[in-house]
């Protein structure tokens, strides 16, 4: 009898022993979201065993990559290693997660190795939704680059612009919401316009848009009227700007009402959450990941948290700074949940700078909190640059933009 009881007790012993072992948090994706989350976890509780899985040995930042496209910056300045992450006591695993098994809490990597977790944080960023734009494909992106993931695509678009003769026509297409970096297409158009005005002034830039409104619109449009009149033309949705098909062989963009031929064409395509989110079952029919805004835990699969561009973060934009803020809030929640406590409702901040020209910066800031299950903008807490500001203010904001980049990348990678 006694013997039987001791056998029965074993599972409880095993569980008790397990509870005293370090809790394992696995983070997939070493961008602004995932790297920030890994560090915040270690800062919050040095006893947590944190593993970060990332396929690339070096991170290439999208913020400021528009400057690389027009030669104001080199790609090396966008690149960050993971030495700082390793030094913070995080296990770096170079590999690609190919499957997630939520019931057993295990992740399999491309080399076949298996990693267990108590909680999983996914920060997979975006995938290009090639199937959502007829005519676009990985092969077509070698002719009509998206340059919406920084790296080779950034450099390809740069080389194309450099090779284009004066008098050429550049066409950019911008997608419908939601997509990574809402002001990004407009900053890119601004900086390409700057490049053309400076180097190839007989050229034209056409920005075909699937939207009628966009981030920092008044600031961008007043800057365009001042700096690039006759050079940069924005075609809104209601002006027939929505691109419905592209043709790489003729470098043409077909809209609902016409066709535009480009010498250099940049397709900013429709996007969805990174592939591993789909595999893990945390995406819904929109292609993005619905989350609880307090803990960032998936609404579809318990034990998995999603941060950054892949998450449906309500009013919060898909930006590097937002991913960094979400990572910190998520890390706090994960540590509390591992300890059996309820997560605390966060306040989140986003700031974002865009350059309209090298010495002309504009910004937007927002503060967010969960309301009715969604991250909601706290009215009056944020704002944009003033619409009427002297050139000195714009120049100062361009400097702030550089400081913003240094601060953010140091916080994440230093």
């Amino acid at each position, binding site marked *: 009898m006694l013997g039987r009881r001791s056998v029965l007790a074993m599972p409880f012993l095993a569980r008790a022993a397990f509870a005293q072992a370090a809790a394992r948090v696995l983070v997939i994706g070493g961008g602004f979201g995932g790297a920030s989350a890994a560090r915040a976890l270690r800062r919050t509780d040095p006893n947590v065993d944190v593993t970060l899985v990332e396929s690339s040995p070096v991170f290439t930042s999208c913020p400021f990559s528009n400057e690389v496209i027009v030669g104001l910056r080199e790609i090396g300045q966008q690149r960050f290693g993971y030495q700082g992450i390793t030094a913070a006591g995080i296990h770096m695993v170079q590999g690609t997660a190919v499957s997630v098994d939520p019931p057993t809490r295990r992740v399999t990597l491309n080399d076949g190795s298996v990693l267990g977790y108590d909680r999983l944080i996914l920060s997979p960023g975006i995938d290009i939704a090639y199937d959502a734009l007829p005519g676009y494909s990985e092969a077509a992106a070698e002719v009509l680059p998206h340059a919406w993931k920084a790296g080779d695509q950034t450099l390809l678009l740069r080389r194309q612009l450099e090779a284009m003769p004066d008098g050429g026509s550049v066409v950019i297409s911008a997608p419908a919401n939601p997509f990574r970096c809402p002001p990004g297409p407009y900053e890119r158009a601004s900086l390409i316009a700057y490049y053309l005005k400076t180097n190839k002034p007989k050229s034209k830039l056409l920005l075909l848009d699937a939207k009628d409104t966009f981030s920092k619109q008044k600031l961008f449009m007043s800057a365009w009227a001042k700096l690039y009149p006759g050079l940069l033309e924005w075609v809104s*949705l209601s*002006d*027939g700007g929505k691109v419905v098909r592209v043709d790489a062989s003729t470098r043409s963009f077909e809209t*609902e*009402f*016409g066709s535009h031929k480009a010498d250099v064409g940049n397709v900013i395509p429709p996007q969805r959450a990174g592939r591993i989110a789909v595999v893990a079952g945390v995406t819904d029919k929109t292609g993005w990941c619905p989350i609880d805004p307090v803990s960032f835990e998936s609404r579809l699969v318990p034990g998995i948290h999603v941060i950054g561009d892949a998450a449906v973060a309500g009013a919060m934009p898909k930006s590097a700074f937002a991913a960094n803020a979400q990572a910190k809030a998520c890390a706090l929640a994960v540590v509390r949940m591992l300890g059996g406590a309820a997560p605390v409702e966060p306040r989140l901040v986003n700031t974002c700078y865009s350059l309209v020209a090298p010495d002309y910066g504009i910004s937007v800031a927002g503060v967010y909190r969960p309301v009715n299950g969604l991250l909601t903008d706290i009215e009056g807490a944020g704002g944009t640059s003033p619409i009427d500001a002297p050139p000195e203010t714009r120049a100062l904001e361009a400097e702030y933009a550089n400081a913003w980049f240094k601060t953010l990348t140091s916080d994440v990678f230093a």
Partner: protein
Amino acid sequence: MARVLINIPKEARKGEVIEIKVLISHPMESGQRRTDSGQVIPRKIINKFVCTWNGDEVLSVDLFPAIAANPFLSFFAVADVSGTISMTWVDDDGATQTELASITVT
């Protein structure tokens, strides 16, 4: 006159199904909104659209206040005879706007 965008092929084979796309720039004021001082902004929408082919009706649409600004319509027709495709939008204030497109059917 409101600005209109139209996409209709100039030529089609007899029996071919063609797509007709039209967009009219219009605020489609729903009548549900108020000004800062609390006054209702009067309803002003496009409430009807009619498309005819040599006078025969191809499509007739009633539009309602829930339809967004700049209504965009896309529909299909079978190309039968050459002639004129006529499109008419009717505003709440009674104004109408008609645009014509010619098509050659071979």
